[in-house]
């Protein structure tokens, strides 16, 4: 059983205040939609939760069966799909997947890569350079990369951006699949995506 806790989280960049005093507590099986207008700090909150930024005040805790997880344990169990996260344009889809699996310390077989690519609807395109992908295909590949470590904490920032109807369907299916075994945090403006989550968190100044 995993747990993600935020206590009185505040973030400011110098004089610019992004958000303050956010509180939440999520357990495996729960998901949270982070909502708020453009520029309200949804993506920043994601970065804070992922320890890319440090919170200015407050505390984040990653717990496994009530015990705080260690840094590399956390790293092995989180994944992010975000417009700010890019894959290597000069590598092919397969090479990207293989690289990110290896640096995470996992072994991955060609078969597993194939399965992942098929799952996100990129079957047969694995050998092409990512630079030649459309933005929707890149988004799909980001999902494949995010699923490499079978994340216990899945962060989705604008999960369906650049995706067509088929792509959106894939994302909805993925969320459905991971819902029971993971904690999912979704930052979004799309009304239909709120309802994918069991909880809501409004981010405001």
């Amino acid at each position, binding site marked *: 059983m995993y747990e993600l806790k935020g206590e009185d989280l505040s973030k400011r*960049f*110098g*004089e610019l*205040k992004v958000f303050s005093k956010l509180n939440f507590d999520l357990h495996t099986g729960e998901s949270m939609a982070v909502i708020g207008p453009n520029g309200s700090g949804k993506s920043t909150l994601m970065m804070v939760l992922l320890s890319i930024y*440090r919170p200015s005040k407050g505390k984040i805790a990653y717990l496994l069966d009530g015990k705080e997880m260690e840094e590399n344990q956390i790293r092995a169990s989180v994944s992010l799909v975000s417009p700010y996260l890019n894959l290597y344009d000069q590598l092919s889809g397969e090479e990207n997947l293989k690289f990110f699996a290896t640096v995470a310390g996992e072994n991955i077989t060609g078969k597993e890569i194939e399965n992942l690519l098929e799952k996100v609807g990129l079957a047969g395109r694995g050998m092409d350079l990512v630079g030649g992908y459309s933005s929707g295909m890149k988004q799909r590949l980001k999902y494949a990369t995010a699923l490499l470590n079978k994340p216990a904490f899945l962060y989705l920032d604008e999960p369906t951006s650049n995706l067509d109807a088929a792509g959106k369907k894939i994302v909805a299916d993925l969320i459905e699949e991971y819902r029971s075994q993971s904690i999912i945090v979704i930052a979004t403006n799309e009304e239909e995506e709120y309802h994918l989550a069991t909880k809501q968190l409004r981010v405001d100044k």
Partner: protein
Amino acid sequence: MWWKWSLFIAMGLVIVFSFTTPAPQQQIGEASRVFYYHIPQAWICVLAFMMSMIFSIRYLKNRRIEEDDRAADAARLGFIFCILATVTGSIFAKVTWGSFWNWDPRESSIFILLLIYGAYFALRGAVEVEERRAALSSVYSIFAFITVPFLIFVIPRITPSLHPEDSIVTENMKFTMGPAVRTIFFSSLALFTVVYFWMFSLARRVRIIERSRMEIEE
């Protein structure tokens, strides 16, 4: 308040005595009076840079932005004293050795210190996000400090020394620095140190006011 007045009077006395007593080093003559100012400045410069590095380490440990403020303030003051020491030294060099700059080991060292802190300020100017600026410049300042022992090892081997350390600092300190010279020199050293800490605390107060104004504006 009282200590500022005593500082003012004491500093005045040091200045007067530094020019009215016989020159500290007969061979060099009048120019050797720079000794009362140049060495305290160089000492403050080293002290300030040491403090800056210690505050940098503390910042990386506890992530309080005040530590980074302190590191920057100390570096800024150190830089000012570094320039003063360079200028006084350079004038002294012109008078005694005939040219303003000779790449004597001390000159080389202080020049490199100026370069390091010039780079440090260039880096601070190039990072907008406060916390990132603090982390990056702390790392750079610690890293730059690691190279100092190598400089100390290398530089004397590259260029021979012209410095009058044998005539004043080493020998006179140990044996022949007379009581008058000794008193003036160490008073000057102490007073410069007090002035430095005063300037440092003033810089701190300015920072605190700035930060609290930021809090109020919210």
